[in-house]
């Protein structure tokens, strides 16, 4: 059933949108601050589309907010990559680059989905994500091929996050498109970008798994959800 597949897409954008929002007021330059907040805003908007459709298809009387604020860590179906902590700006931008590259490939495939609602959301969001990938690619190149300090930080970010890449291409029946077919376009873009950024792709393709199936999230997700969900859980009737 497609609800699980919709949750995977909506939980990715929700969790990463929340992570990026934490940079607001803290980024290294005003332009970066504004850019991260804008990307977070796009992702939260996309979450409303995906989780809104998931709630409608599920037909259990839940809505977007119920799904976002009243599920626990084990109910979430996001990739382990997006729940990884922000750490420094280099890690944040490398995480963004890896996610954007996969996300663009996934949404491009989903524009052809037989379900008209899924295809419509993909057509809408693929335009925003094209822009996200352009920016994160430029930033990874600028920092990778930058100063010795920025280069070292980007290489260490890549080494740290690479074990979370494999999960993006794991596939099962709940996925809305065959994720294994996205690996080739992903590799092409990553290889070209790393060459320009003078960064070295790690040898090992060992992959941590368990985020998109909900079997084993990292400890980080629960802490993030505690912050994100505290208000609607403490005051269930609160309205903006």
């Amino acid at each position: 059933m497609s609800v699980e597949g919709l949750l995977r897409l909506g939980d990715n954008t929700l969790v990463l949108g929340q992570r990026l929002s934490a940079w607001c007021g803290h980024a290294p330059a005003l332009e970066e601050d504004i850019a991260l907040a804008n990307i977070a805003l796009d992702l939260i908007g996309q979450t409303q589309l995906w989780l809104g459709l998931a709630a409608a298809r599920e037909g259990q009387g839940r809505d977007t907010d119920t799904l976002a604020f009243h599920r626990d860590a084990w109910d979430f179906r996001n990739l382990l990559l997006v729940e990884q902590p922000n750490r420094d700006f280099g890690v944040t931008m490398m995480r963004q680059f890896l996610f954007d590259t996969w996300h663009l490939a996934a949404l491009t495939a989903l524009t052809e989905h037989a379900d008209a609602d899924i295809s419509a959301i993909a057509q809408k969001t693929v335009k925003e994500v094209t822009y996200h990938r352009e920016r994160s690619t430029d930033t990874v190149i600028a920092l990778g091929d930058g100063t010795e300090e920025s280069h070292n930080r980007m290489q260490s970010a890549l080494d740290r996050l690479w074990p979370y890449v494999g999960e993006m291409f794991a596939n099962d029946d709940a996925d809305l498109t065959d994720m294994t077919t996205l690996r080739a376009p992903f590799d092409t873009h990553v290889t070209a970008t790393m060459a320009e950024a003078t960064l070295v792709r790690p040898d090992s393709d060992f992959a941590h798994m368990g985020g998109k199936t909900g079997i084993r999230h990292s400890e980080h997700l629960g802490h993030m959800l505690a912050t994100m969900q505290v208000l609607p859980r403490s005051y269930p009737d609160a309205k903006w």
Partner: protein
Amino acid sequence: MVTTRASLDDIWGWLSEVPDPEIPVISVVDLGIIRDVAWQGDTLQVTVTPTYSGCPATAVINMEIEAALRARGIDHIALKRQIAPPWTTDWLSDTGRAKLEAYGIAPPRAAGGPARCPHCKADTVERISQFGSTPCKAQWRCTTCLEPFDYFKCI
């Protein structure tokens, strides 16, 4: 009871007076987000498409559309959200483009950047940031008059 339904031309005219909340110099019609207006019985259905998925102006725009139509005596209004085909800056009207530039915002271009500085009209421009004060804008600057300006992103 007999009620007179306003003509669709009149309604398009009223909507063309509803300003975009973030860029009040252009209207929601100039922006190209009103996709259709149709009477269904005595209910007026207005089809609106969002610019960006997360644009917070969307909710305000819906309220303003409804308020403008109510002020003209239309009581039954249904706003329909349509996301496909997705909004594109190609739907920005020529009037809208001219108003944007006069306001100091360079209009979108397929080339991916502004043709010229909206202030001094020089073509010596460079990008500061891919993002700006709202989801629909990027920051550029003119190297002739040295003024920074907003560029309406082309999507």
